[in-house]
């Protein structure tokens, strides 16, 4: 289990993390979601020992991270968002290099490297220099490095961001497979569909603060409030101002010609929304009421945070 209490980090005067606390259960997939600059990567870098922190406490498997950093780092695998390798090496050489650092026995190392390359589908390109790899191939090699020595905890920072759709699906299947093997996964992503598919627990971070940490199932129960999507013929930006002033409207999200209305009271909304939209004097293409997705919950939480 990973337990973070009151973690703070400053970059000069900028507070990147404002006393955040959360727990990651053993064998679960913990989705860490937030906008760019929210503090996701800073948290990851601290938890993997790459960055110092100003205040707080981290314990992994019940052991204090700072006091047992060397021992605990052997149990951790990390896939950074933009992995960087020695470009003049090939995959075999790089994995051997990392294996030696981790302390893999040389007898097993060759076999381990071959298995890992096979797992991430890089066996054919294993003898090519890494400098000639595509971003997706580098991401797969990074995953092989993260898997080295069968870590008990994996930190994955945007693991699918550089992958093509097929690679992304494979990555998600891989994460699901690891969850079945009871590997603890700390997954940072901005692809909310991915988080929705593989995570057991979701944590939303914004501006260095944790806005929410909850199991995915109870999250849907709490934020079951439907959303009303309306598509307009023209840009609705200026026309929807009256809707924002309605007391049963919590927030409005505009994306091109589509407007998502987040409501406080669905019963009132159902009765009144059509009348209010008709009063806007704007051409409507479609109208529907749908259930909240993780993306909606995220937008709602982040929106609230902006108002604070």
């Amino acid at each position, binding site marked *: 289990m990973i337990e973070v209490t009151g973690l703070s980090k400053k970059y000069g005067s900028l507070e990147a993390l404002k006393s955040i606390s959360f727990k990651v259960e053993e064998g679960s997939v913990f989705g860490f979601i937030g906008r760019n600059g929210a503090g996701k*990567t*800073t948290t990851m*870098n601290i938890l*993997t*020992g*790459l*960055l*110092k922190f100003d205040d707080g406490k981290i314990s992994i498997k019940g052991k204090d991270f700072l006091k047992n*950093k*060397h021992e605990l*780092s*052997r149990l*951790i*695998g*990390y896939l*950074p968002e*933009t*992995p*960087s*390798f*020695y470009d*003049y*090496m090939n995959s075999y*050489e790089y994995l051997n*290099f*990392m294996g*030696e*650092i*981790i*302390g893999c026995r040389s007898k097993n190392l060759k076999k381990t490297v071959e298995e890992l390359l096979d797992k991430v589908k890089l066996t054919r390109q294993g003898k090519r220099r890494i400098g000639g790899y595509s971003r997706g191939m580098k991401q797969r090699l*990074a995953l092989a*490095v993260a898997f*080295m*020595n069968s870590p008990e905890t994996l*930190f994955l920072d945007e693991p699918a961001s550089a992958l093509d759709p097929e690679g992304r699906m494979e990555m998600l299947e891989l994460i699901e497979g690891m969850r079945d093997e009871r590997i603890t996964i700390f997954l940072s992503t901005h692809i909310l569909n991915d988080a929705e598919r593989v995570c057991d627990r979701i944590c939303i971070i914004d501006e260095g603060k944790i806005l929410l940490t909850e199991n995915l199932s109870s999250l849907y129960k709490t934020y079951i409030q439907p959303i009303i999507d309306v598509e307009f013929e023209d840009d609705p930006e200026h026309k929807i101002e009256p809707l924002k002033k309605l007391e049963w409207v919590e927030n409005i999200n505009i994306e091109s010609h589509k407007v998502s209305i987040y409501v406080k009271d669905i019963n009132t909304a159902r009765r009144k929304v059509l009348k209010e939209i008709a009063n806007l004097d704007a051409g409507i293409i479609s109208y529907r009421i749908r259930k909240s997705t993780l993306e909606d919950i995220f937008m709602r939480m982040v929106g609230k945070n902006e108002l604070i």
Partner: protein
Amino acid sequence: MNSFKAYFKKEAIEAIRTHKYLILFVGTVFWALLNPLMLKLLPIILKNYITAELTDIFTYFTRDSAFLNFLGDLFEMGTLFIAFSLMGLISNEVYRKKLTFPYSRGVDPAGMVLAKYVHYAATISIFILMAFLTNYFYINILFSGGILSIGIVLKSALLYIFYYCILLSILIFFSSIFKRSLITGITILVLGYSLSLFNRFKTIRVYFPNYLLYRAADILNIFDSSLVSTAIIYFCTTILFVFLTIYRMKKIDIA
């Protein structure tokens, strides 16, 4: 020890594939070969362009003066090549984020720094020894006269090796504190050249590493008692800079 072994191998692969061995070879051994040849051939090539007096200077080169000429040139060229080929030894790793994986998997910074230092100290030592022997071989073929012997050459080479080992320890330290490798390169170059000025001051010169070069050029009496202070300072300074680099790499934020 795992980190030391892994990084030692990595440095060897890197030096081959990024041509660092070749660059250091050119700056030392190739220069040692070229130096006496140029000294011999220059008056012939330039005989129509330089005065007879100047031609005479070239003609009267003995084995000793040719060797001393090589020492001066090796100091200038060697320092230049070493400073600029190794200036990114640590800064490139840190600021190009090459250390993310090793640090996240528990690399021992001491093993890493020592592997880098030992690898390049050994490389430079071998190349300098090769350079001195190559130069001695060609000097013996091309020039005559003087007292130069293999013993003198080896003693001089040893002091040059010590000098470059201390310079390397300073370089590795600066490379861990400066973000831009070029700053490290220029600092080492300026430091290497400017410290030679202290050789003019008899009372304090023994406390500076460039005194090793001064003694290496005194071929009549290379090893004397004044070298004891320099040797003590040499060992302490080298250990200090390597230790400071390890300390810095233990405290540094990698991400």
